[in-house]
C-alpha cells in the first residue's frame, strides 16, 4: 500500500550528513518551514572533531597551527575553493552557530579560537583539528602538558590499542602507562556501541574507576577510547574524574564512531524539536519547476510524498552519500543532473601513487557554484534561482587532504541558507 500525500515547504534539505544537518538546523532556526530528506547518513563515521584547515598548501606536508592566515592564502590561490566564498567573520559565525546549536541539544564542544589543536588519535598519530568535543579537550596538545599519562583500552575492542596509541608519545619526557581492561562477560569481542551503552551503567563506572585508581600514583591524566556513553558523555567523564581524582579525556578512534553517533543524535533531536519534518530513507526525484517552486517526489517503500519547495539545499555528498555517481567514463550528479567539474578522462582520476602528496584529481570533483553557493549550469549561470549546494559535493575541495571536511560543510551550509534567507527577505521587503 502506497501512502500518498502532498506537502510544501520553504526549504527542502536533501542529505543528512554534516552539511545537511547544519543546513536544516540553520533553516529551521531562522523560522523557515523545512523538510529534510536523507538516508541513515555517514554521520556515524564522523570522528566528532571539527576541522577547519589542517594542511595548506596541499603538498606542503606541514601541519598548520593557525588556520586563518592559511585560509587567506588559500582564498587568493584558489578562488574556486568553497572557502573563497566566505570571509573570516562568516566562518567564525558559522562555527559559533554550530557549537551553540549542539550545546542546546546537550552536546558540549568548546568555543572556537584562532588556533588548531593537535589531538592524539587511536593509531598514535597527532591530527590537527579546530574544535573538539568537551570530553576530548584535555587530551589536546599533550606534548605541552607536563603530566604522566595513562591510556586505557578494552580487550576485544577492535581498532583501539593503548600501546599503539601510546607509540606516538615517545618524544615526551613524562611517562606513559597503558592499561588493558578485560571484561570477562565479553569473550567474543566488543562492539563500540554496546560498550558505550555499558558506560551508562553505574556498576560499570565503579568497576572501571577502581581499575584506573590502581594507577593513581603513577599517572595524572587518563585517556580512554571515545566510548564513554552515548547520551550524556560529558557527565559520565565528569563522574569518572570525580571517582578517580584524575583528569580524563577521550581519544577518537575507528568507525563506527561514538562521537559521530552523539552528533547524529543531537542534530536529530534538536531539529525535530524545531518541527522540521524528516523523511528517512526516501529517494528524491526532481519532477519540474512550477512558478519558481521545485516539485519533487520523496519515494519510500511505504509512502510517496509530493513536495513543493521554494528552495532546495543539495547536501547529498559525494560517492558514499550517493550525491555523485561514478559511471564507467564520467561522474554525474544524481538528482538534478547538474554539470560536474571533473577530470576529462578516467585515467586522470587517480595518481599512480596512492599517497601522492598532490592528492587525486577525482577528489576535486563536484559542483561549481557562484559566490552564494548556487550550482552553475553549462553556461556558467546559476542552474536554478533557488538551488544551493553545500558540503562535500562542492568542487575544488579535497577535504581529506586539507583536513577541512567539517569546515567546508559547516560554512557552505550555513552561508547557503543565509543567502537564501537574505534574498527572500529582500524580495519580500520590496
Amino acid at each position, binding site marked *: 500500500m502506497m501512502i500518498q500525500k502532498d506537502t510544501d515547504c520553504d526549504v527542502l534539505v536533501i542529505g543528512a550528513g554534516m552539511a545537511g544537518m547544519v543546513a536544516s538546523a540553520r533553516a529551521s532556526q531562522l523560522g523557515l518551514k523545512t523538510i529534510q530528506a536523507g538516508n541513515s547518513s555517514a554521520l556515524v563515521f564522523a570522528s566528532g572533531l571539527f576541522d577547519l584547515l589542517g594542511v595548506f598548501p596541499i603538498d606542503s606536508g606541514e601541519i598548520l597551527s593557525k588556520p586563518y592566515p592559511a585560509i587567506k592564502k588559500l582564498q587568493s590561490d584558489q578562488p574556486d575553493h568553497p572557502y573563497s566564498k566566505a570571509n573570516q567573520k562568516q566562518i567564525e559565525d558559522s562555527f559559533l552557530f554550530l557549537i551553540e546549536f549542539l550545546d542546546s541539544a546537550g552536546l558540549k564542544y568548546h568555543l572556537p579560537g584562532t588556533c588548531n589543536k593537535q589531538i592524539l588519535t587511536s593509531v598514535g598519530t597527532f591530527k590537527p583539528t579546530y574544535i573538539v568535543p568537551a570530553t576530548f579537550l584535555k587530551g589536546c596538545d599533550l606534548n605541552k602538558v607536563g603530566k604522566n599519562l595513562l591510556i586505557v583500552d578494552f580487550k576485544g575492542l577492535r581498532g583501539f590499542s593503548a600501546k599503539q596509541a601510546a607509540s606516538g608519545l615517545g618524544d615526551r619526557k613524562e611517562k606513559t602507562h597503558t592499561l588493558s581492561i578485560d571484561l570477562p562477560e565479553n569473550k*567474543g569481542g566488543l*562492539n*563500540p556501541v554496546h560498550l558505550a551503552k555499558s558506560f551508562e551503567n553505574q556498576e560499570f563506572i565503579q568497576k572501571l574507576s577502581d581499575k584506573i585508581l590502581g594507577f593513581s600514583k603513577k599517572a595524572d591524566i587518563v585517556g580512554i577510547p571515545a566510548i564513554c556513553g552515548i547520551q550524556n558523555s560529558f557527565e559520565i567523564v565528569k563522574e569518572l574524574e570525580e571517582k578517580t581524582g584524575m583528569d580524563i579525556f577521550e581519544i577518537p578512534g575507528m568507525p563506527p564512531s561514538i562521537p559521530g553517533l552523539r552528533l547524529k543524535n543531537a542534530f536529530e533531536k534538536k531539529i525535530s524539536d524545531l518541527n522540521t519534518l524528516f523523511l528517512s530513507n526516501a529517494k528524491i526525484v526532481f519532477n519540474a519547476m512550477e512558478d519558481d517552486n521545485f516539485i519533487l517526489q520523496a519515494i519510500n517503500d511505504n509512502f510517496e510524498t509530493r513536495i513543493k519547495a521554494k528552495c532546495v539545499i543539495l547536501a547529498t555528498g559525494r560517492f558514499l552519500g550517493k550525491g555523485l555517481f561514478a559511471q564507467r567514463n564520467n561522474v554525474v550528479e544524481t538528482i538534478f543532473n547538474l554539470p560536474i567539474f571533473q577530470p576529462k578522462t578516467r585515467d586522470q582520476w587517480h595518481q599512480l601513487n596512492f599517497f601522492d602528496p598532490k592528492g587525486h584529481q577525482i577528489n576535486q570533483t563536484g559542483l561549481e557554484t557562484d559566490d552564494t553557493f548556487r550550482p552553475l549550469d553549462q553556461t556558467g549561470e546559476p542552474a536554478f534561482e533557488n538551488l544551493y549546494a553545500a558540503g562535500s559535493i562542492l568542487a575544488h575541495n579535497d577535504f581529506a587532504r586539507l583536513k577541512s571536511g567539517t569546515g567546508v560543510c559547516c560554512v557552505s551550509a550555513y552561508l547557503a541558507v543565509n543567502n537564501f534567507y537574505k534574498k527572500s527577505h529582500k524580495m519580500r521587503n520590496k
Partner: protein
Amino acid sequence: MIIKALTIAISLSLIGFLYQFFSFIKTNKTFDKKKWRMKNLSIKSFSLNSILQTKLFKAGKIRWLMHLLVASGFLYLVIFHALDDVTSSYWFQYYQPTVDPFQFLRNLAGIFVLIGCVGFLCRRLFFFKKLKKRKIQFKGLFSILLILSIILSGFLLEAVKIISEPVFMEMVEEYSDIDEGTDLVDLKIYWEKNYNAVFNEPLLITPEKLAIGKELNENFCIDCHSPIKSAFISKSIAKALKKPSIWLNYHRIDNLLYYVHYFLCLLIIVSLPFSRLFHIFLIPVASLEKNLKKEQLDQTLGYINTATLYACTNCGFCSDVCSVFPNFLITKNINTLPHAKIESFKKLMNSAPVESKALYMLQSGNGECTYCHKCTDICPSGIDLQNLWVLLNQKLSLKGYQDNYTFINNLSLEKWAKLAPEKEKTSSTQGKTTQLADNVDSFENCIQCTICTNVCPVVEHDIDGNDYTPQQVLNLLRLGKKHLATGTRMVWNCLTCFSCQESCPQGIKVADIMIELRNNGNLRADALKLENFTKAT
C-alpha cells in the same frame, strides 16, 4: 437365554475395560525425573466437567444442550427403564412401565436422546465444508447411530405393542377373569377407542358397550395402564401403524422388535470400552488432572497419562481456534492441527513402529505450535493439550526428531556447508531468482562498516552465542557463500527488529536478507532431515 446373553455381554465388556486399563497403564510414560503428585489433581474441574460439562458449555451452547439432552435422556433410560427390575420396581411400589409418570418420562427421555443424536448428525451436515477443510473426521458415527437405533427400536416396540392384539389377549388371560364373550368384546372396544389397540374382527361401537368396557378396564387394567396420551411419541407411531397392523400382529413383530432392541443394548454394552462412548469414563479421568497455565509450561511433569489421549472425542474445536491454522493451509501438514496431532500421539504412545516420515511430519507440524493455550482452553474433554505438545516435542527430540533451529545448531557450520546441494555451493543461483541474496545489487554496496553489528540487540545480548555478526553474514554473501550463511547462528537468532536495516548507511536491506536466508535454511533443513529419515528406513 436372555440372561445368558446379558452375562456374556457384560463379561465381554468387563474384559474390554480391563484390556484398555492395562494398555493405558503400560503406555503411561514419564520423560522427566519429576514424579506424579497428588496435588496435580483438581477435584473442582473433575466434578464440574464430568457432571455439568462446563468446558463444553464454554465451547458451544447449542452443542452443550444437545449433549446434555443425550446424556440426561440416556442416563434416565438406563437407570429407570433398562435396569427397572433392580431400580424402579424396587424404589416405587406402584411401578409399571406403562404407568405415569414412567410412561411419559420414558417417551420424554427417548425424544431427548433422539433430538440430541439428530443434532449431532446435523452439525456434521451443516458444517460439512468447514470440517472437511480442517480434515476433521466423523469418528463417533457408530456410537451415535447405535444409540439412535436403540431409541427408534424402543419407540417402535412400544408402538407395536400398543396395537398388538396377541399381547392384549395374553394380558387379558393373565390379569383378568374375562372369558370369551361380550365382556371381552366390550373391553376390546374400549381399548380400541382409548388405547389405540387394533383388532382383527370388526367391532361395533355403542355407548353402552363402551360404558361396560370402561368398567371392565377400571376393574382389571387401569392400575397398570395409564391413559395412552402420555406415551406421546409411541401413540403417534401406533396410529401410523394402523394399516399394516394385522400383518404386524400376525407375525408377532413385537417379539422380533423386542429382541432387536435387546440385542442393540447388548451391543452397546460390549462396544463401550472400544467405541467413542468410552469418553464417558475417560473425560472425568482427563478432567481430574490440572491443566497447566500458559506461563507454567516449564513446570510440566513430563508425565503422560495415555487415558487422557483417548478422552479426545475428535470434536475439532481445538483446530477451530488453533492459532497456526493458516500455517496448515500453507504447509498442508495435517499434524499442524491439534486434533490430528493427538491421533498421531496415540500411535506414538502405542509402541507399534511408526514410519519415520510420519514422525518427521509430526515434528514439523508440532514445531509450528506457538503455545498460545487456546486448544487447552477450549477442549471440552478437559485434556491438557498444550502440555501434551510440550511433551510431544520432548519425546520426538529424544527420538532424534528436532526442530530446524536445534537441528542446525547441533550441526557444525562446516558440515552444514558440506551438506549443501552442489548448485548452491557453486552459487549458480546468483541472478537466477528474485531473492535478495541471489542478486548482487542487493549487497554489493556493503562497506563492512559494522554499523549493523553495533545496533544489533542479538549481538549485544550474547556476543558469544553468535558465530557471525550481521556484517560478516553479508560478507559471506559477497564471497559467494550463501550456502554457509543460511546455517549461521546470527541468521537463526535474528529477531528481525530491523535496526540494522534502518541504520545501514548504504541502504542495504540487511534484515530482509536475514529473513530470506533463514527461510532458505529452513527449507534446506527440512529437505536434509527428510533425506536422513528416508535413508534410515
